[in-house]
């Protein structure tokens, strides 16, 4: 017995934010450099009244067009942008999708490692006989957390959702996992205010960096260089451990899909781990970094465009806010 991914659908909000849009607002913004080095030309962003739950509904409806929703017995939503502190967005999503009330549902709060953890949870629930057919949704709207004058973060993040059906299968398609956490990195990607520790502060001080980007403690803060250091240290050994745990050699992996953080970071990691360019996905040109949704968006693209074929072994790796990281190998 095993588990497999049956289908993935994505939804990106209609509104766009291009490098030219950024340049028109912030003359220090360099559209060519951002496209060339960061690998992003435009991002889909939510409008003021659109939430991660709205994106989750749209992506889920798409995936349920080809799957009998009466068969779904578990719903898991990964987001760091819930509609409310309570109730849990997954409960609202159950009702909006008109899923059976016998469906188990919960949210979990992770960022860029979310899809890997989601698959691990699915594997646990299905292996234990608790669920058979799971709707696993990644939905994120970091742009709602970014200060309008923080063009460093506005250049990177886009919004989006991906809904994946994971079900029980005769043979195993989702292999062993390596998961990891290093909470020492908590302050390097954080929204300091708005939770219980520091409440939202309407008079929060506006802070500016050397490049002229501004934010307050009510907004997202990312220490890019430290996040980069974390990935350089953690990811090469994460890949080796994942191969080892699965008794697979590097050469036996047909394709690698990492969290699409930004092109510069991915290029550097790829070279450091010595993954050939033709076996490595790097495409966030028209979506930006959609946090937990990047891996399923990439996987869907790879399957649809024939980059990966039935039987291929694909290594998936997510890393980011927390710090939290994880990897697994799937068979298409």
């Amino acid at each position, binding site marked *: 017995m095993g588990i497999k991914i049956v289908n993935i659908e994505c939804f990106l909000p209609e509104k766009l934010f291009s490098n030219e849009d950024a340049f028109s607002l912030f003359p220090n913004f360099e559209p060519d450099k951002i496209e060339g080095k960061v690998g992003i030309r435009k991002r889909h962003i939510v409008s003021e009244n659109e939430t991660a739950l709205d994106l989750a509904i749209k992506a889920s409806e798409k995936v349920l067009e080809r799957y009998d929703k009466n068969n779904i017995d578990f719903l898991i939503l990964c987001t760091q942008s819930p509609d409310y502190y309570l109730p849990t967005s997954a409960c609202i999503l159950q009702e909006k999708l008109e899923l059976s009330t016998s469906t188990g549902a919960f949210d979990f709060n992770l960022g860029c490692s979310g899809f890997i953890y989601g698959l691990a949870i699915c594997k646990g629930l299905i292996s234990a006989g608790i669920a058979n057919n799971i709707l696993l949704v990644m939905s994120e709207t970091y742009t709602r957390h970014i200060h309008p004058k923080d063009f460093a973060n506005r250049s990177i993040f886009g919004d989006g959702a991906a809904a994946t059906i994971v079900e029980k299968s005769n043979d195993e398609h989702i292999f062993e996992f390596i998961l990891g956490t290093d909470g020492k990195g908590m302050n390097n990607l954080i929204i300091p205010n708005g939770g219980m520790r520091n409440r939202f502060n309407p008079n929060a001080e506006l802070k500016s960096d050397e490049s002229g980007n501004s934010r307050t403690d009510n907004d997202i803060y990312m220490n*890019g*260089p430290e996040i980069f250091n974390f990935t350089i240290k953690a990811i090469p050994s994460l890949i080796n451990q994942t191969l080892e745990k699965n008794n697979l050699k590097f050469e036996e992996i047909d394709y690698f899909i990492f969290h699409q953080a930004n092109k510069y970071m991915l290029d550097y990691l790829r070279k450091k781990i010595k993954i050939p360019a033709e076996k490595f996905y790097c495409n966030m040109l028209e979506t930006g970094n959609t946090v937990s949704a990047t891996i399923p968006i990439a996987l869907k693209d790879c399957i649809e465009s024939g980059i990966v074929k039935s039987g291929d072994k694909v290594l998936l790796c997510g890393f980011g806010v927390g710090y939290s990281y994880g990897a697994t190998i799937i068979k298409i």
Partner: protein
Amino acid sequence: MTKANFFKEMHEMLEITSVDTITEETVLKELEEYNSLFLLTIIAFIDDNFNLQLSAEQLASVTTIKSLMELIGLKKFED
């Protein structure tokens, strides 16, 4: 690595156009190109060439290129 090579490779890697050459006296934060992507490039360059990871805090303390070389270790540079 020779000092001359270090200056040349830094100049190329960082795609610096605001000054013609880099010297020991160049002040990093005064370069027009200085931003977070610029810092990422320095981290990658030093990790790649010296197998050393500089923290964001260390990088923030860098003034001149010489102070960056001191962080890396002056012994690693030949004249």
